[in-house]
């Protein structure tokens, strides 16, 4: 018997839990060359900004052990071109689309949200809180619960209530639960974790940082444990809040870890660079793993690792180090 893979992102039903991660699926057209985008749980766009952005200089990418650093700098065409060309293309095809937005001020976020309020084909809004707050000396919004909450409240207040607002959180904070709670209190319908933690690599031949921007976001399998930890901690503290687990998912096994930690949706990012079909493969692998463990519904596995278990079971499943 097949597993019921349907899931809910707040009140919006997705046919399956596997989505792309923001910034990893281009405009959708690039992946559509390989497979039908309807087979995704949803497509998450790159972070759309108010003005066109040229991004950071090259080199923008460096491979690191089990991961990669990137410093793209939110390159994109801006909201006008997005509404004119990219969103209609997705909407006409009926592809579930989560629009990620990014800004430098609270006003910019709410202006973006206002522009998207009446745009057809927006399944949800993901608020990228990892943007530098130009009103606060460039400190990123996600670093501070107060600043993050202000952005979420402003977006929530202008967004239609049938469109969920998802807050994308960064792991580069002392207390991710506090930021998560502030966002939920401000009106976030769901949380997405994690954005790329900051990393750095030095080119030892050039004796210089490898990336032109110096630092960059670390992604790939290297950050999966970080994502699992954040999802776990936030689900434990806020068990009723839907969580999109993102970070280093390369296989169904990785996705299942995030689901057992408390995610009901799983975002796939860097794996798409390695394998354009990664989302479909991961969804299939996830279904097989759930089936093998006797699950009839994906929903039954969400947060299951939090269930208290007997000592006897724990010992059985652990490999002894003695």
């Amino acid at each position, binding site marked *: 018997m097949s597993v019921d893979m349907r899931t809910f992102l707040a009140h919006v039903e997705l046919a399956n839990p596997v989505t792309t991660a923001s*910034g*990893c*699926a*281009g405009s959708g057209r*690039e*992946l559509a*060359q*390989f497979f039908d985008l309807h087979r995704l749980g949803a497509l998450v766009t*790159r972070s759309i900004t*108010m*003005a*066109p*952005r*040229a*991004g*950071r*200089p*090259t*080199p*923008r*990418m460096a*491979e690191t*052990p*089990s*991961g*990669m650093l*990137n410093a*793209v700098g939110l*390159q*994109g*065409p*801006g*909201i*006008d071109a997005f509404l004119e060309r990219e969103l209609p293309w997705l909407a006409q095809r009926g592809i579930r689309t989560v629009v990620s937005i990014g800004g430098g001020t609270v006003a910019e976020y709410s*202006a973006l949200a206002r*522009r998207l309020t009446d745009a057809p084909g927006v399944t949800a809004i993901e608020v990228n809180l990892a943007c530098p707050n130009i009103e606060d000396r460039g400190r990123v919004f996600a670093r501070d619960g107060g600043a993050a909450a202000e952005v979420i409240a402003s977006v929530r207040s202008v967004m239609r209530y049938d469109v969920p607002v998802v807050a994308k959180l960064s792991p580069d904070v002392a207390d991710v639960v506090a930021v998560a709670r502030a966002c939920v209190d401000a009106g976030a319908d769901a949380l997405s974790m994690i954005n790329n933690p900051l990393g750095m690599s030095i080119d030892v031949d050039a004796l210089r940082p490898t990336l*032109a921007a110096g630092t960059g976001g670390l992604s*790939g*399998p290297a950050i999966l444990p970080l994502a699992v930890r954040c999802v776990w901690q936030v689900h434990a503290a806020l068990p009723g809040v839907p969580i999109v687990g993102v970070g280093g998912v*390369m296989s169904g096994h990785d996705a299942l870890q995030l689901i057992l930690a408390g995610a009901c949706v799983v975002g796939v990012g*860097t*794996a*798409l*660079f*390695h*394998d*354009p*079909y990664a989302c479909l493969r991961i969804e299939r692998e996830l279904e097989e793993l759930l089936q093998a463990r006797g699950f009839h519904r994906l929903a039954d596995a969400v947060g299951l690792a939090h269930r208290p278990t007997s000592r006897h079971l724990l010992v059985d499943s652990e490999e002894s180090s003695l």
Partner: protein
Amino acid sequence: MAGTPVQVTGTVLTTRRVDAYHALTVVAPGVAERFRPGHFVSVAVGGPRTSMVTRRALSIHDVKPDYGGTVELVFTATGPGTSWLAERRARDTLDLVGPLGRPFPLPRDPASCVLVGAEYGAAALFPLADALLERGCRIDFALGAASADRVFGAMRARRMAETTTLTTEDGSLGLRGSVTDVLPAVIADTHADAIYACGPMETLRAVTAVAIEFDIPVQVAVEEAMACGIGVCMTCVLPVIGDDGVTRMVRACAEGPVFRGERVRFEDVGTIPFDALGAPGGGVRNVG
């Protein structure tokens, strides 16, 4: 369907050393039949449990219909990924995505074309040379590298072209100097109508400067580090002037790798020019 990329698991047919480079022939039916000169493939490296998460973009040197379609890839082992590739043996499998990128535009009528290749960038010029010859074009090669063992394809170029001019920096083969030193003479001798060039960015910049001087069109295939090769990661951008005169940061993988040379702002590669669309603090802003 020409151009639509596919992902295939190809089997390595042969491996060989070509001077300082490695060449792998891989059975890749879907890729081979869609291939046009200038396309490239991206290859997963390190095996299924690898820690290397980005693909390697490699130019296609040759395509043959044998075994349902084979592609020959030429590369140099510079890091852990390409070193792993260099260790592949016959019957190993490789995960390929291709053909990727925009191919070389070909002249409608027979024309005289100079093909300029530096180092192993020259590999991509040979399928182009075949296509040009089929159209009745005259072709002339100018190939260069640092030393004799790094000049790629000299023998094959001599067989195909009217003339082949070789240059090395150390003078160990052909003329001493760089390939762009001899280019004006080659253009003048052959009455060239167009130039095609592959190689490092510095060579492409110099070739384009010569082409502008002679007022003939130049098509360059750029080399930029790519993570995905399919246009989703946005890491391989360079400043290129569009038809509307506006400079944009475009992807070498999806909008390239072939560009009209005079449209590429070589001096500004590795920067965001102040007048580029969406450049910080300037350019064509669209603040709402």
